């Protein structure tokens, strides 16, 4: 990673925060492009590729959540949302809008950069595994997971998953019939040790169900094991 600098798009309306966060992230070895509002962010995004987007929820022109949705539609780069609210409302809404993780102001830059690195690390993993492992296909009911090809079919039709959703599904598929705790999933899918929250997993499971279950309200494939975690039915 040291050879190829990681490019971050930082969307934040407060100029002082933007400046100092850029400086701090640059100290951590990232290349940071600033955007003061959603329009600028989308324009920058058109101009050049980014590895990670850092999106503040409160933006002057467009809701940060809406920007998340637009970015998510255009690509599957990791999105980290930044919220200033004390309650968890924004965080949950952000994850529902397609973000991979969230940080709360005031954040410690060291922790933020650790999370960004973890998110990026696991992006490289599927390709590594693809070269090491035999091509693997998991069949769960009407859902087919082509792990190495990065394709998921439901009733023969391709389902579009974000990278996080795909990794979550692969992790569960690899251990079919076994219960995986939220902590285990945070560690294996997000690459976090003791710094993420369980709701990060819950939000993604909910979105994954909406895409692979025939009745997301009564999941038959990806089930919750009360008090323990999640399990993909064998």
């Amino acid at each position: 990673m040291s050879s190829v600098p990681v490019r971050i798009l930082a969307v934040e309306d407060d100029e002082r925060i933007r400046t100092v966060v850029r400086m701090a992230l640059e100290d951590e070895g990232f290349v940071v492009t600033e955007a003061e509002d959603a329009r600028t962010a989308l324009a920058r995004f058109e101009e050049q590729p980014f590895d990670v987007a850092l999106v503040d929820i409160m933006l002057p022109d467009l809701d940060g959540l809406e920007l998340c949705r637009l970015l998510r539609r255009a690509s599957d780069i990791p999105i980290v949302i930044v919220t200033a609210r004390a309650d968890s409302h924004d965080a949950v809404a952000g994850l529902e809008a397609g973000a991979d993780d969230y940080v709360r102001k005031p954040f410690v830059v060291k922790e933020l950069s650790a999370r960004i690195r973890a998110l990026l690390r696991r992006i490289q993993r599927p390709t590594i595994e693809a070269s090491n492992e035999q091509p693997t296909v998991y069949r769960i009911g009407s859902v087919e997971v082509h792990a190495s090809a990065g394709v998921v079919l439901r009733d023969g039709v391709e389902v579009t998953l974000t990278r996080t959703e795909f990794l979550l599904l692969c992790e569960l598929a690899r251990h079919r019939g076994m219960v995986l705790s939220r902590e285990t999933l945070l560690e294996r899918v997000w690459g976090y040790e003791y710094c993420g929250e369980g709701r990060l997993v819950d939000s993604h499971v909910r979105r994954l169900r909406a895409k692979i279950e025939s009745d997301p309200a009564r999941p038959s494939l990806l089930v919750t094991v009360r008090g323990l975690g999640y399990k993909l039915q064998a």
Partner: protein
Amino acid sequence: VTGLRFRAILAFGLGALLLSSTVGVLTYLFAERYLVGQREASLQREAFVHARLVREEALRSQRPAQTLESLERAPDSTILVASTGEWIASSVGIGPDDLPRALRRAAREGVVAHQRFELRGQPSYAIGIPIPAVSSVYFEVFDLDELERSLGILRASLLGAAAIATLLGALVGLWASRRVLRPVADVALAAEMVGSGNLHTRLEPINDRDLDRVITSFNGMVDVLEQRIERDERFVSDVSHELRSPLTTLSAAADVMQAQRTELSTRGQLAFDLLAEEVERFGRTLEDLLQLSLSGTEAEPVQLTPVELGTLVDRAVAAAGTHVCVMVDSTAAAPTLVDERRMERAVANLVDNARRHAGGVVAASVRLRGDQLQIVIDDAGPGVPTAERDRIFERFARGAATRRDRSSSGGGLGLALVQEDVRLHGGRVWVEDAPGSTGARFVIEVPWRPA
């Protein structure tokens, strides 16, 4: 037994008892007077008829004794005739000594007399009629048992009626108080709902002049309460944003400066360290303060999910970089219903507190005590003096030991937040001496709700 309903039942019951017993007593007195009067009059008529027959017979035969046999008399009467010191009686059961003395004297003095009296425990009625023509005195004694029995039945029925009336009165009282109390119960239910956080609860207006005011003022009160809580929440949210933004700048700026710290002079480095430390402490205090003010509001409702507490404590202890084995009682190992985030935060705050003030956690356990689950955290510090054991859970309170050494202290809100989180579970938290060491033992106790 001091409730409004009880008092209404008592009042209605007593009222009915008073009314029915007054009516009963009056009815009885009138009925008794009437019945006794009637009976006495008819007995008197009968006695006069008999006395006349005795007189005529005596005049004719000069011997009154035989006539008694021929008199048609009721089976419950006894006739005694005294003539010149000689007594003849129609039955052997009753003699002249059984007659009331006053009656005998009056009759002998030539006055017709009658008297009610008790004859061997039997209510009786005696009439004395002087018959001067044959210098005799005619006495007749009537057994009043039948009348007494009738009066007894009357008494019993009136008593029964009074009892039934009292019972009915009490039932009416119950019914009336229910009716009166129903709106009060509605208000109580609504107040409970508001109390449990449902601020949209309002009372339905009802067409009742007496209760309208209660309902209007209750709804008005909840309106004000709701507005105030909304305002508070908005205020917290605004403060949150207004303080978090500059704090983010400060914190990130400190991070940037940290990288250049070595380029500063010694004085500059000292100043920077103080600055960075205070920024971090400020951030932590703000976070705790906001969590504390949001606690229990609609923004952060309590969500109970099944959680293995052993795993949760393990995680919280490990997150602080401490390595102790968490002892879990086998009975307490099963998942239990708690708000996972709050409970984890509470345990993490205790662990953090131990790390800051008491050399870290040395032992942790989860155990079941009766129907309460306990999470026990022991530290290696100097312990908490008895006098401070309640105070340390207050906001911004610090133990005497930590007050001297502010740099090592947290925001002063950690333990208050623990108490709040535990309180929302319906539990409590306290500190005691750790057994076998000088350290403190913090105990979180929550009701055991097996999943």
